[in-house]
């Protein structure tokens, strides 16, 4: 366990320490997925890789977007764009909780001073057709992470089970750095020649996106995009696995899943625009879930998903 108990001084230092820590635990440090997602779980390194029998260990930062949470950068801790740190280890190791606690220590949380608690919080993602059991982890009454043992993803039972960690980076960092408002939080080292706060980096974008999300995004276009993504996803999945050009078996789970991610984000945007009624909401969620499930079905038919010619 890394004995780094000194306090970090900036947002990015916390991220860097997490990266170093999880790299030392043997995780592949991946990069953020290059699409708009609502949470780190949507990254295929989590959603798809938690399926099938192949072992997996990955950690990464994922910028996440929740249009309805936009507050024009004014709320001390609500943002429409924020960062999550995500860890997925399959199968979940027996010492998963200790590994997690090690990461808190690595970012400067001293157990001699703080109260860490694992409070029941079962995780469910209706759009991913996924659920798991676990906790929200509290540090002095503040939720600092979500800890889940995945039981089902995309309608498939997880076997083996993955252990998943999600850290809400801004909130966690504000707590460690003692900031009351996210925009005041040092982004880089406050001693640097050009010291930047979180606000320097994101205040303006929060304003811009809040306005666009709530009032400007063209709903007709979004609706059309949603339908297009849905249709494309299905079209991709309907294609035969055997590629006539190369003669190879190529299951296009990832390109299809990209479309499912798109549909999910478009739904979130439509929701923020307030054009989805409560009854329609369920229907939209159901449509996205159907896509996620179809992608999961395809992934387990691919090599990374554990498919082998022998098994087939």
């Amino acid at each position, binding site marked *: 366990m890394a004995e780094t108990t000194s306090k970090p001084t900036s947002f990015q230092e916390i991220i860097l320490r997490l990266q170093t820590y999880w790299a030392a635990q043997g995780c592949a440090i991946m990069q953020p997925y290059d699409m708009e997602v609502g949470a780190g779980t949507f990254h295929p390194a989590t959603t798809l890789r938690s399926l099938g029998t192949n072992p997996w260990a990955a950690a990464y930062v994922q910028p996440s977007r929740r249009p309805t949470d936009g507050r024009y950068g004014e709320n001390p801790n609500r943002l429409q764009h924020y960062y999550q740190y995500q860890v997925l280890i399959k199968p979940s190791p027996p010492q998963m909780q200790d590994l997690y606690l090690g990461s808190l220590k690595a970012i400067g949380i001293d*157990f*001699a*001073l703080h*109260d860490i608690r694992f409070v029941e919080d079962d995780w469910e993602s209706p759009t991913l057709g996924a659920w798991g059991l676990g*906790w929200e982890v509290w540090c*002095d*009454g503040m939720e600092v992470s979500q800890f889940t043992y995945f039981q089902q993803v995309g309608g498939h039972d*997880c076997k083996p089970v993955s252990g998943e960690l999600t850290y809400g980076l801004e909130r966690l960092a504000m707590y460690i750095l003692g900031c009351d408002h996210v925009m005041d939080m040092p982004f880089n080292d406050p001693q640097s020649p050009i010291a930047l706060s979180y606000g320097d980096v994101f205040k303006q974008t929060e304003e811009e996106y809040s306005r666009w999300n709530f009032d400007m995004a063209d709903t007709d276009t979004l609706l059309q995009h949603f339908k297009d993504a849905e249709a494309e996803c299905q079209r991709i999945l309907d294609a035969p696995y055997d590629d006539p050009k190369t003669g190879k078996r190529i299951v296009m789970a990832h390109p299809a899943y990209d479309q499912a991610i798109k549909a999910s984000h478009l739904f979130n945007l439509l929701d923020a625009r307030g054009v989805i009624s409560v009854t329609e909401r369920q229907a939209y969620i159901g449509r996205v879930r159907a896509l996620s499930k179809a992608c999961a079905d395809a992934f387990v038919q691919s090599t990374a998903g554990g498919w082998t010619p022998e098994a087939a």
Partner: protein
Amino acid sequence: MPDLLIELFSEEIPARMQTRAAADLKKLVTDGLVEAGLTYASAGSFSTPRRLALTVEGLTAESAAVREERKGPRTDAPEKALEGFLRSTGLTADQLEKRDMGKKGEVFFAIIEKPGRPAADIIAEVLENAIRNFPWPKSMKWGEGNLKWVRPLHRILCILTDEAGTEVVPLDVDGIKAADKTEGHRFLAPTPFSVTSFEDYSTKLKRAYVVLDAQERADHIWADATSQAFAQGLEVVEDKGLLAEVAGLVEWPVVLMGEIDETFLGLPPEVLKTSMKEHQKFFSVKNPKTGRIEKFVTVANVETEDNGATILAGNQKVLFARLSDAKFFWENDLRIAKAETEPRMKPWLDALENVTFHNKLGSQKERIDRIAALAREIAPVVGADPDLAEQAARVAKADLSSEMIYEFPELQGLMGRYYAEAAGLPAEVANAAEEHYSPLGPSDDVPTAPVSVAVALADKLDTLTGFWAIDEKPTGSKDPFALRRAALGVIRLILGANFRSSLDSAFEAGFRSHVISDFRRVISQQSDEIQKSDLMFELKIDAENSLSSQIEAWAASVEGGELRDEIQERFVELSHELFSFFHDRLKVFLKDKGIRHDVIDACIAMPGNDDLTLLVKRAEALSKTLKTEDGENLVQGFKRANNILSKEEEKDGVSYELDPKIELAETEEEKTLFAALDAAEAKITPAMEAEDFTTAMTAMAELRAPIDAFFEAVKINADSQIVRRNRLCLLNRIRVICGGVADLTKLEG
């Protein structure tokens, strides 16, 4: 006599499941031990966030040997019979005994000897079985394993202790081997240690910062919290559920009291309390002088170098953020509540159009329209102003659209009151916003303010008639829409308000719109001429019109009147069903008040049984009277007359319902009975009019002596047919008079 100690050590068990799990562990293991032939003196189970523990004392060291004798087929029975017997006993033919049973011939006997088994073997089997079949509300797998537990299971401690020492019960569940080791507090004492007995275990745990007993943790928390509050002249707001939950979140409770920032003290106290409890599991601490919530108590799981200063500061910061949110919602909500819109709180009411109540019963907005119409109709009966009742019904659910209720749904109604007050609406309306959900539980207060009663009744009646109309009635233990609770609510409201109108008319009003829309739906599904049907149903539902007149109105536009008949029939059928549902609910309600079900049946059999207030008055009076001598006299007198009369009526195939004539009376006893009946009637009639059923029944009871005397002296079946008929008619008069309060034939015993 060895003692058994078991501990199942896992990752954090949800607080709400711990108590039940400890009890389940005890039951599963002790039942299993007993079933396998062991006995024990006592057992106790415990839970902490990370462990379930069971101690069983005075266990027998091994199960007794069992010798069982089983009779088989005759020795000359077919081979098949013998084979079956051997299979079922697990013996071979040469192990069987042959016994001569005299007349029955020679029969095979099997002697099955089951040797005693050592306790450890049995325990290993029973515990493995308990672990594999544990009734967790939700369980999970982890890693590559197939074992299911509430969260990953790490250790099994299972030891037997007697004078000779301690032995580990050999057991391996999917690679987890039983041992004599456990761990202490996650942070304060994580090094594993061995234990030799329950006493050793609980002592060492306490030294390792774990209080094993949940009750002890709860007691400690409560004692410490109240004394810290007391020292500052404050008091902790009691919350037993929260206390139990918090005791399940810590192994080593450390109570800390913190401040609520001044800025938030202006929030409604319920908001403070709910926010602190739901999000942070804080107890509220109030100032008894002002009644305001001024501080909070949080319970940490750890002792720290700085005596909890960092923990408290962190918790206060989180609370600050939470309450900032609550304050933001409160202020936004107040802006909408205070805006001079027409009607008040219009944006919220409009938003309810988009909220589905039930896909067959429309949106919340449509529901509110129905409730408003119904409340208006009910208002005069409960003494409420119809305009106010309608207004109250229209705004009572406005808070459902507010930000505060989105965040804290459990504050519905209460926030409605605050917002209605802020909107400057009449006090009755604000009251109704809070009270119209009541009564929720059987111990919940029943509102008495007329406007609140009108809206509360309308709300529940709309729900009941609505779900009845779409055929979503409760069945067995399934009552997803809480219709039983709604019906009980109606009953209590009616009785509480002395509501004296027939339920029939309330049902009719409730069913009206549902039946209409139900038929509209059916017709638009069936008919090709949807347009025509739609035109027909364009008819506005007018509260002034009764259902039947509306049906008449449509019927005129429908050929053949088939639809009219169908609707009328459906309406009658629904009302009838809902009635018997209410009567069932009423029986449950009155049974709790000690009134027998047959007493209620006897009163339900009377006319006017849709007036619940009258029905209950009858039942209460009858129940009371039956417990006295008067009751006995009444029932006996009635029965004597009724039994003979019924028999004769059945024999003759006629009803003797004419007035008996005193001129035809032959004996003194007969004449006395006539006089007694006249005298009784003179008392009964006014008492019945005044609904003074007890007095009426006392007068009826007085008839017993003359009735008895009459039967002693008089032969009913007189030779003269005229005299006989007159006497039977006299008995009928007794029956009618004594049956005025309840149908006494329905009484049991």
